[in-house]
């Protein structure tokens, strides 16, 4: 009787422990991403002009001109004479408090920006002289760590300003990837050994969640259990797709847990930073072979309203 009682209390105790964990997820705060172990930005976000796209931590900043047109944001052509003065364009593009806070968070280090260059860009050339054209200013800012040292990420960032002098905000994507190693390539006896690729080919599950300005005030907020369910469902679908890929049939994963994350996003009326909240639904590879390093977490990003990141495997073998 006594023993039974003890066991019961014990099990109750452990049950309540897990319940507490489930109620208060930890905060996601390691924003570093190892760029050597990643697919290229172009593979993750193929629709944007390459030289205008950059990544800081887990956030990709990009411009998607085709998308502007789809959304009816097409810029008005102007004559060169009525283009906004360069000084105004530079001022409009200057990194503000929010952008700086986001950059500092993603790089884990305080950064400062110096104006470097303003390029006049002809976005869509009509070929006629003295005609109204689609001009933009491309402003190049040099990014420097305040306290010196080396920082991950690009040294320069580019910001676009339209002909009327308004900043064109970047599209922002929250991403994550993890490297999976495929078995050794089979040797093709016909192929010249010189051109044979060495090393094990990689495959990257990749999560990409487009963040919108409006996400800061979602229409609904789902419960953590509902978020977890959506994240796991989407992940399972991606794993199914992964298993359909040649030689990738045997990868196995386990669910690790839920975390919360917040990104500096806007200023409120009092001039304080407001944060965008997102959920990190984390998974980990169950490794069948012994590896030097423990498997990294893979995060499926889910918005508060339940919008799940776009998930897809990127196969290194698809590169030509």
């Amino acid at each position, binding site marked *: 009787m006594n023993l039974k009682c003890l066991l019961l209390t014990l099990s109750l105790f452990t049950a309540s422990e897990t319940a507490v964990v489930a109620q208060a997820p930890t905060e996601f705060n390691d924003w570093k991403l190892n760029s050597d172990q990643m697919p290229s930005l172009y593979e993750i976000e193929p629709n944007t002009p390459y030289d205008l796209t950059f990544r800081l931590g887990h956030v990709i900043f990009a411009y998607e001109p085709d998308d502007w047109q789809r959304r009816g944001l097409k810029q008005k052509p102007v004559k060169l004479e009525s283009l906004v003065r360069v*000084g105004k364009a530079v001022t409009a593009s200057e990194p503000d408090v929010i952008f700086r806070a986001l950059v500092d968070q993603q790089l884990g280090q305080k950064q400062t920006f110096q104006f470097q260059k303003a390029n006049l860009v002809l976005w869509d050339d009509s070929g006629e002289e003295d005609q109204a054209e689609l001009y933009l200013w491309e402003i190049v800012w040099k990014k420097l760590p305040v306290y010196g040292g080396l920082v991950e990420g690009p040294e320069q960032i580019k910001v676009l300003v339209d002909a009327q002098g308004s900043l064109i905000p970047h599209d922002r994507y929250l991403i994550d990837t993890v490297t999976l190693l495929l078995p050794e390539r089979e040797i093709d006896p016909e192929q010249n050994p010189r051109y044979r690729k060495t090393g094990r080919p990689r495959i990257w599950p990749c999560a990409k969640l487009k963040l919108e300005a409006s996400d800061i005030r979602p229409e609904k907020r789902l419960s953590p259990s509902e978020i977890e369910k959506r994240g796991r469902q989407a992940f399972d679908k991606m794993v199914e797709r992964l298993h359909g890929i040649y030689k990738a049939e045997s990868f196995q994963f386990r669910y690790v847990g839920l975390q919360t994350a917040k990104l500096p996003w806007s200023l409120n009326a009092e001039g304080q930073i407001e944060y965008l909240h997102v959920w990190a639904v984390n998974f980990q590879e169950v490794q069948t072979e012994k590896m030097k390093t423990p498997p990294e977490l893979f995060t499926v990003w889910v918005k508060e309203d339940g919008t799940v990141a776009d998930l897809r495997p990127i196969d290194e073998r698809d590169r030509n």
Partner: protein
Amino acid sequence: MRKIALLMLFIVVAAPSAWGDPYRKKDVDPMLSRWMFFLGPNLSVAELIPGADLKTSRTIGTLMIAYPERIINEEDAPPVDLKDVVPVATVIRRTKPDKALTALINLHLDPDCHFSCQGASLVSRKHIGYRWHVAWELSPNYGGSSGPPVEYRAVVTAGGKVITPDFYQFDTYISREHKQWLCSILKLKLPENQQEQKMLSQQQIEERGRAAFQELLKQVKVTPGADPAQFEFQDCRAIEFPLRVGADGKFQYMKAWGVNFKEIPGSDEKKIEDFFTVWVMEDGTVSELKIIPIDS
């Protein structure tokens, strides 16, 4: 009758070139067309023109458009505030290459080219201030491509002053025996007072050119045991470089003579087609002649 028919045919064939087809230009003088896209291996702008700014200076064939570093790096006085920087439209209008520059460049190019603006950038430079850089790219008048892009880089201060580059006509020659570059660099500028200037005869020009070239050859280091390369005089002819459009709308030219020398091949060597040009101005001033070792 047959003769007349043949004659007619001849006229029809010959007419377009003989009777001034406006689309056909005369061939580029070989003195001007020697190097098309580079100065020659191992040679940089800075070696030919010490103190030239590498970021903005350009060569188009044997023509060099060079900005002295001293002027490019000159501080804006007083400094111009970012909001007061001259508008880009003004900058592009002020730097549009005029007829004289287009003609000067086309003297070196075949086919004829025209300029189009390929972009303008405001560059922020520490200690100097803001500078506009405008890229004027050359493309053939009648379409097609002339290979790698050839451009003229215009530089304008934040206050709107166009920084004028120096123009040079240059030649470089390498002799296998010498392992050295022979260089000839002539600064192109209009004579200050054309009337008072003394003009030398062609023979005097040729003599000056020969004498200067002999002096240059004396400085050539010869590999011990090897025979020094021998040169012979080839020819001498004048070129008129259009440098400015005058008030009357006509070009103002600088006339200079190219005195050409050809290497005499050794008994076991093939004929050498290449030659070296010593430039001599009408008043007898000889182009800067110097030797640049290949290894440097």
